[in-house]
């Protein structure tokens, strides 16, 4: 007799974008670029930039609070807080412990996770593992970045791309297996599918910040080539891990790096029915915040509904990448 097994699922999303909107026109006044070029090559129409005194901890706290509210849980229910970020204000102390304190979560496990733009998917996988193993009853997972602090605003190859924001999800337990689905039937599949992840340290020099006094540098063409050739098999593996056919996906939410990359990967998925997230158009590239922020906004707009199977794919500096299929709460 097959038994049910401990699983994990998402209980709620939250997102936060800073108030200040920066349009392509504004950037075109400062560097040699144009609205048309940016929209065609990157896909961004506008992005949000945090206020000078607005921190990653601030943004993470707001997004985390919204996810907690959406989940219906109390702060006391959270056993672990993970903040995925590659732009924390401080390496010592971490961001997660401060966020937990501000949200009134008493003494949870707390750590920051740096996998750059794959950070949220890595953190989500780790959160699901913790819940399944019983290490934490519920986990608050946040992706938050203030990339504007790391960008050379005179460098037109990067200042048009990177932006600020935060997104979050609460992960809780679920039972999976026979009899756990609607009306006692088979489970509809994992709330959070097993991750397909990896890294390629050979590409470490493609996106980097040299030292504490330097800015983000990336080899755009090399990154584009890598992202459009190597990642779709990872995405397909994540579908297989979850026991989901690409044709069953309601949506595909890749890291919002560049709309041309997003479209190129989507073309290869064999999921023409899936809505493809294009949050980058009004959010910019917010690294580990981009996927949870997109999920939060898509939920608010009704682009994704309860029960939808959604494929997430994070990828970026490291190079690091991770994909999993989730079920929308």
């Amino acid at each position, binding site marked *: 007799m097959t038994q049910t097994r401990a699983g994990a699922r998402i209980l709620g999303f939250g997102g936060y974008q800073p108030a200040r909107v920066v349009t392509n026109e504004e950037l075109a006044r400062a560097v040699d670029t144009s609205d048309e070029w940016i929209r065609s090559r990157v896909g961004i129409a506008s992005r949000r930039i945090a206020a000078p005194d607005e921190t990653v901890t601030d943004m993470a706290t707001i997004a985390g609070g919204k996810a907690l509210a959406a989940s219906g849980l109390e702060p006391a229910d959270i056993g672990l807080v993970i903040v995925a970020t590659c732009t924390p204000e401080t390496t010592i102390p971490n961001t997660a412990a401060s966020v937990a304190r501000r949200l009134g979560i008493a003494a949870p496990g707390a750590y920051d996770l740096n996998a750059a733009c794959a950070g949220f998917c890595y953190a989500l996988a780790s959160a699901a593992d913790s819940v399944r193993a019983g290490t934490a009853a519920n986990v608050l997972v946040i992706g938050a970045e203030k990339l504007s602090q790391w960008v050379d605003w005179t460098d037109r190859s990067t200042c048009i791309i990177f932006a600020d924001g935060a997104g979050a999800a609460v992960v809780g337990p679920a039972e999976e297996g026979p009899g756990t689905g609607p009306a006692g039937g088979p489970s509809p599949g994992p709330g959070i599918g097993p991750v397909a992840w990896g890294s390629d340290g050979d590409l470490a020099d493609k996106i980097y910040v040299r030292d504490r006094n330097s800015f983000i540098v990336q080899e755009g063409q090399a990154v584009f080539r890598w992202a459009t050739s190597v990642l779709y098999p990872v995405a397909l593996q994540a579908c297989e891990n979850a026991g989901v056919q690409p044709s069953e996906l309601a949506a595909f939410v890749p890291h919002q790096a560049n709309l041309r990359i997003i479209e*190129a990967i989507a*073309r290869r998925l064999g999921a023409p029915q899936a809505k493809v997230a294009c949050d980058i158009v009004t959010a910019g590239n917010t690294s580990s915040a981009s996927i949870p922020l997109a999920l939060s906004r898509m939920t608010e707009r009704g682009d994704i509904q309860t029960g939808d199977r959604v494929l997430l794919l994070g990828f970026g500096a490291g190079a690091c990448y991770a994909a999993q299929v989730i079920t929308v709460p």
Partner: protein
Amino acid sequence: MAMTDQEILAGLGEIIDEVAGVPADQVTPEKTFVDDLDIDSLSMVEIAVAAQEKFSVEIPDDQLKDLKTVQDVIEYVKRSAVSA
């Protein structure tokens, strides 16, 4: 067995149609990617990646930059197949 020019052209046409939305019958050997087919450098990378898979050749960025016309790519694929 080596592919003919026509076979490579047909394969390229399919790729360019999918990547850049240019109808395959408009993809003729003498046309330049940038001026005639209005294909930018990002699409060229995507086309190169797809061509690598379809024709079992390597088209690194430093070779790609010299491929200006459709015929240039056909010649490149034929040359690479011969030396494989």
